[in-house]
């Protein structure tokens, strides 16, 4: 990057109310929401729950009736709305690109408003196109109509990032895309966010999208209030009430599998040895362990081969090249769901788990995953009991 990117800033909504003239109930009612710097917060709920209204009040496309919105500690009321919006990225459904402007010109709009010189803008445009995975030479001078929906949405994200704002507002940006493009763009948003650490407010009605993207999720209910504001795992294991449970629908445990990282559960430990270890010592270790096999690591602690008692019996000196090559490993950042897939396809019942630099960290078997599922379920049950007890007591 030509210049270091601006990281996110905190946003705080204090008792924010919006009543539209003529509407009976306020669209948003005394809403409190604190968004930490650099987090993705997803506002999710059915249509008419006030999620979009809430988001649009942050950049003052809708003026709050009462309450206060603090962006990096400053009340948004004190900032001219047009200036405020130039420092808040804005992405909407189907990108909202200007069809009569080229891709480059679309992206250049905010920098132009901010008075950047032409060379700086041209450099920034190319940099952003590369960042969102579009070849600048191919796409710079194209008109939006000639791009696919996914490509248009990438340009939309690039336009929002153009002036490197600390905050991004995204209003169902991937709603109109086919499932494959949507998933790919979600993944890329997460990848971008790893580097950029913007504060992102993301509106969707798709709970799966919310669970996947959100650091925190605010589940909203008509008329205009938040039912639960928590991390995805907590919402899945401990839904605040029946409404949230209904909204989550069936399959919470499966979803939890896709939220839980391999590194977050307790891994199996199998006996292991270095390539230059003496075969007799390894055999002794394997026999002591009782499982009948061990993992051989190379000098960088990367899993190389499985050796069994049969391989080792009668051998002397370094284990060297004996044994069966490890057919696959699972990265500790993979979700349990992906790990399950790997396990079902693996040649062996046990698959090594690797961390940084592909170094061995532990192992996973179907039984380990099953235990993890059971402990999640037990935790869920326990929490429900606690809640029921609390309700009866109250």
């Amino acid at each position, binding site marked *: 990057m030509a210049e270091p990117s601006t990281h996110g800033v905190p946003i705080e909504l204090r008792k924010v109310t919006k009543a539209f003239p003529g509407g009976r109930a306020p669209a948003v009612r005394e809403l409190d929401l604190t968004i930490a710097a650099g987090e993705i917060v997803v506002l999710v709920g059915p249509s008419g729950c006030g999620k979009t209204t809430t988001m649009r009040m942050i*950049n003052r*496309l809708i003026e709050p009736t009462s309450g206060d919105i603090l962006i990096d500690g400053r009340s948004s009321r004190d900032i001219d709305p*047009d*200036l*405020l*919006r*130039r*420092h808040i*990225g*804005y992405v*909407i*459904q*189907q990108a*909202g*690109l*200007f*069809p*009569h*402007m*080229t891709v480059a010109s679309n992206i250049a*709009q*905010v920098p132009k*408003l901010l008075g950047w010189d032409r060379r700086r803008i041209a450099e920034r445009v190319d940099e952003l196109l590369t960042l969102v*995975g*579009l*070849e600048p030479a*191919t*796409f710079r*001078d*194209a*008109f*939006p*109509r*000639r*791009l*696919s929906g996914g*490509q248009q949405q990438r340009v939309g994200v690039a*336009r*929002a990032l153009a002036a490197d704002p600390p905050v991004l*507002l995204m209003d169902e940006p991937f709603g109109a895309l086919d499932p494959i493009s949507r998933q*790919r763009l979600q993944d*890329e948003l997460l990848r971008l966010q790893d580097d950029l650490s913007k504060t992102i407010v993301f509106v969707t009605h798709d709970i799966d999208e919310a669970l996947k993207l959100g650091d925190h999720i605010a589940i909203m209910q008509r008329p205009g209030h938040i039912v639960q504001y928590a991390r995805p795992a907590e919402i899945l294991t401990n839904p605040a009430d029946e409404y949230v449970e209904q909204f989550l629908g069936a399959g919470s445990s499966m979803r939890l599998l896709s939220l839980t990282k391999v590194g977050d559960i307790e891994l199996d430990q199998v006996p292991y040895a270095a390539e230059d270890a003496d075969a007799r010592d390894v055999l002794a270790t394997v026999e002591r362990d009782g499982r009948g096999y061990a993992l051989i690591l190379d000098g960088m602690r990367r899993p190389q081969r499985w050796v069994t008692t049969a391989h080792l019996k009668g051998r002397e000196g370094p284990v060297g090249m004996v044994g069966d090559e490890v057919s696959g490993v699972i990265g500790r950042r993979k979700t349990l769901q992906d790990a399950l897939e790997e396990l079902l396809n693996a040649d062996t019942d046990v698959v090594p788990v690797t961390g940084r630099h592909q170094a061995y960290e532990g192992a996973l078997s179907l039984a380990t995953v099953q235990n993890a599922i059971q402990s999640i379920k037990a935790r869920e049950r326990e929490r429900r009991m606690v809640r029921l007890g609390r309700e009866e007591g109250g």
Partner: protein
Amino acid sequence: MSLSTAAERETIPEPRIGRSWHVVLPPLCYLAVAVAMIAYTQQVPLDGIERGSLNLPFVLRRTWEHVLLVFFSTVLVLAVALPLGIVLTRPGLRRVTPYALALANLGQAIPAVGMVVLLAVLFRIGFWTAVAALFAYSLLPTLRNTMVGLEQVDPRLVDAGRGIGMSAAGVLAKVELPMAVPVILSGVRTTLVLNVGTAGIAAFIGAGGLGDLITAGVSTQRNLVLVTGCVLIAVLALIVDWLGGLAQRLLSPKGLS
């Protein structure tokens, strides 16, 4: 992400419209018809009355007057209809819209001859009264198309424009007006062609124009004079329509169709 070859194929340059020579073929044909008509009137034997209406300086002066009538009335229409159309489509003023449109409709609903004569009675005979009548008569197409053109701009684009920090005026200038240009220009084209035709009536109140040939031809029963006037007005209308079409193609923003 790997770029598909399809995407690269799709980004071929926009076709360059309005550059090839055959675009100028129609107006050349129109002009040829006019020249042939005038040449014919100069060749055939004419009586005194015909000679008075068909001599070259007279015809050219009347044609020039006709062009001026169309020019001034159209400029007036643009000066009024564009700002009015913009103002009437701003959120605060939507309530006034039906009344403004009704008024513009009234101008066109009154028969053109009646309008011209009415204004001549109210004011005075002459060129500018004719321009005013033409203005009232041809305001509607441009006004309505300006409003329709602005209203059919996708509200999400306006939202996107405001959302990224453009001012209301900025969105109007950079998004709404460019997007509305094709529709507005087709309204202007209608206004122009209407004016060329209706300007023929200006002769009734002594404002000149090619209508003089028609009225003279009718009142003196000289068919050649009448036909010459009609043909020249028709040719003028066709040429103006072609110019309008050209403007529409050249001024419409790229990337829309």
